[in-house]
């Protein structure tokens, strides 16, 4: 399908995104000056607009709407910054996922082996085509080269972010859109395995095992390797050719963009509450949620308020700015996190390791620190893919970093020890630790003359301290074995309460100050934080609680446990009321109501 002009929904003011191909270039200035409120305008690059056959690329030679220089000049004249989003995967708001029509040959299949089909905000259905087709990669590389030449020729010094598009699946995991299980993927995978085998056979150093797929787990491992290889090829093309403008890679979750959302919309049953939960899951995975697919449902609805507060005013600016700049800008609210859980990978979703859930830690965090922890990859999912929004040093020191040794390489362990030495707070689960890593850890403790205190609390727990730094060492397999009832590993729903209590005590040793909420069904919330300013010297920091009632019932939320906090102000009240008591606050939320409450954390 060829791209066509359609003025509807070309501008998403909340996230400052402008779909330049949807509006006549003669109307760009009017549309942008009327609609964009923030400091920047995000321009997703529409590859298909700029080429018909892959050999010639159009940047204003033929189509006026391909004139990116004119667009950039207009935006700058309006006093805004320009940021290009360059797709490194299919994206759901573009016909064919963004692939030019002449390349839309081989379907991409999701994990259910259905042709990826995603609906946009105008109820148009876009079908994805496989990025594992070598012709697609070659044409992409040519386009990037042409784009780079154009930027240099026109001296357009705009920041470029490589976008890994994806969705949040029903398990709250991020599934990137490059994922494919079509015959095209399988052909490429077969060639990949063949090359692996030839390389293994050709090795001179001793015996090597030929690549043999003898279990589903092993097949998944090699499929992930192949996926990473191809994803890295697209990334490297962009990063190397656009080096002068390149800022990094940004994973983006399109809310409403899961394959299952398509069928929900066919039934007319897509749920606002599910969209909000998906957005919160995205943030917890350090993935930027975007509302462009569901924007048609916004307007007065709770979705618009939610995305403005969670994304436009907070997560998005924090992602695009440098962390050192953020630390200087104390008055910008950032999402509040107390803990990072490090997993082997975040992308691809399928087969994601749920180690921390199996050992009860994630359950406890979801109960006591809802939406206040993140899940990050131990090492970036893509080699050479530096991610946006790495925490500043100060934020890293205040978080609790949870690592599992079974996911650590020597490089990963080095990072753990560096965090500790820089004043960080680390919990390292030594279950299944590689003997080499154990030896390295033991050497580290001896070389630095560190004191280790052991305590028997359900299991042996060791604490290593160095000034403000703290490292807790334990073996979760002992914990699970101790409370196993002879049936094997506990599914999450059967985790003994003692396991969850164990983690509660471990976390309590870090003395986190927090107001824990247990809201009724349908009420969603998240926290933000910022430094106290010069008029707030009584406080260590300011925290903002955003509450949303995503149900059609009236709800009451009781907030207690505020001994260390002061209520400062209430804002953005929509169909809601707050009542203060001696020791608690009661918030009444009418259907689709919301409000925000600022608290000061006393020094």
């Amino acid at each position: 399908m060829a791209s066509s002009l359609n003025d509807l929904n070309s501008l998403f003011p909340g996230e400052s995104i402008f779909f330049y191909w949807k509006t006549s270039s003669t109307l760009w200035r009017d549309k942008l000056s009327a609609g964009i409120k923030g400091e920047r305008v995000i321009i997703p690059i529409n590859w298909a607009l700029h080429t018909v056959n892959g050999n010639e690329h159009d940047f204003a030679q033929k189509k006026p709407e391909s004139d990116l220089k004119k667009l950039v000049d207009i935006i700058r004249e309006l006093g805004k910054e320009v940021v290009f989003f360059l797709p490194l995967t299919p994206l759901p708001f573009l016909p064919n996922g963004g692939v030019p029509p002449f390349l839309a040959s081989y379907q991409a299949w999701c994990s259910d082996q259905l042709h990826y089909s995603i609906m946009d905000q105008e109820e148009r259905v876009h079908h994805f085509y496989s990025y594992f087709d070598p012709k697609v990669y070659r044409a992409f590389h040519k386009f990037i080269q042409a784009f780079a030449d154009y930027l240099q020729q026109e001296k357009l010094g705009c920041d470029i972010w490589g976008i890994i598009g994806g969705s949040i699946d029903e398990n709250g995991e991020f599934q990137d859109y490059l994922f494919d299980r079509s015959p095209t993927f399988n052909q490429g995978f077969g060639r990949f395995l063949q090359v692996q085998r030839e390389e293994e056979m050709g090795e001179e150093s001793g015996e090597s095992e030929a690549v043999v797929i003898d279990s589903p787990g092993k097949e998944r491992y090699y499929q992930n390797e192949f996926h990473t290889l191809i994803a890295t090829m697209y990334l490297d093309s962009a990063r190397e050719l656009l080096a002068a403008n390149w800022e990094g890679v940004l994973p983006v979750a399109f809310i409403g963009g899961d394959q299952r959302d398509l069928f929900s919309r066919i039934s007319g049953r897509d749920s606002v509450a599910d969209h909000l939960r998906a957005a919160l899951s995205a943030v917890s995975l350090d993935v930027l949620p975007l509302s462009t697919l569901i924007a048609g449902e916004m307007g007065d609805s709770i979705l618009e308020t939610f995305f403005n507060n969670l994304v436009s005013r907070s997560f998005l600016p924090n992602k695009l700015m440098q962390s050192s700049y953020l630390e200087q800008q104390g008055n910008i609210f950032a999402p509040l996190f107390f803990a990072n859980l490090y997993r082997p990978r975040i992308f691809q979703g399928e087969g994601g390791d749920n180690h921390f859930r199996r050992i009860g830690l994630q359950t406890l965090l979801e109960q006591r620190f809802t939406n206040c922890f993140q899940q990050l990859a131990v090492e970036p999912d893509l080699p050479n893919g530096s991610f946006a929004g790495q925490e500043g040093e100060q934020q890293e020191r205040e978080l609790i970093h949870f690592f599992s040794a079974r996911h650590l390489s020597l490089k990963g362990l080095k990072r753990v020890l560096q965090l500790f030495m820089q004043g960080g707070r680390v919990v390292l689960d030594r279950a299944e630790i590689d003997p080499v890593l154990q030896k390295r850890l033991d050497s580290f403790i001896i070389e630095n003359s560190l004191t280790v205190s052991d305590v028997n609390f359900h299991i042996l727990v060791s604490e290593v301290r160095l000034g403000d730094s703290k490292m807790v060492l334990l073996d979760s397999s002992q914990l699970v074995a101790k409370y196993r009832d002879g049936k094997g590993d506990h599914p999450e729903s059967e985790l003994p309460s003692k396991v969850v209590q164990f983690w509660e005590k471990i976390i309590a040793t870090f003395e986190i100050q927090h107001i824990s909420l247990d809201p009724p069904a349908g009420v969603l919330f998240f926290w933000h934080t910022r430094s106290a300013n010069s008029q707030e010297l009584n406080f260590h920091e300011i925290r903002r609680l955003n509450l949303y009632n995503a149900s059609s019932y009236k709800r009451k939320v009781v907030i207690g446990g505020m001994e260390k906090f002061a209520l400062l102000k209430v804002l953005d009240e929509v169909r809601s009321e707050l009542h203060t008591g001696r020791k608690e606050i009661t918030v009444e939320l009418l259907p689709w109501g919301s409000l925000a409450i600022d608290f000061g954390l006393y020094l």
Partner: protein
Amino acid sequence: MIRNTLFGIYGVGSKDPATCELTHLFGDEGYVDSETISRAYLEQEGRAMEQMGAGRAGPFARLEDLQRYAYALCDQIGVARVILIDRDEYNQKVEHATSLDELREILPTMGSAMENADHSKGGTIWSKIFN
């Protein structure tokens, strides 16, 4: 024709290619919930189904078992028909739909429909009261 219809997209089992499974079961109320699916599976197969999430059911040893299950579910939920769509056919035909309206037109033309005989016999509430 999209109303009062349960749709089921199925294909080979994800864990055992010798079996088949339903990956998307949805109707007027959206995806069929896990509890309803699990209960119906237990009633037919005599064993608990591994939790796979809303709208997923399986595995089934034979296609006939899957069809029988889908029909029973259709009756349990109280819809007029169930349309079972093979994954390959879905992939072939869905490409032609470029909008929500087109999808809603194309879906009922895919696969094979099984009418719920009990549902059509039930008739309107008036006929139930006066019969």
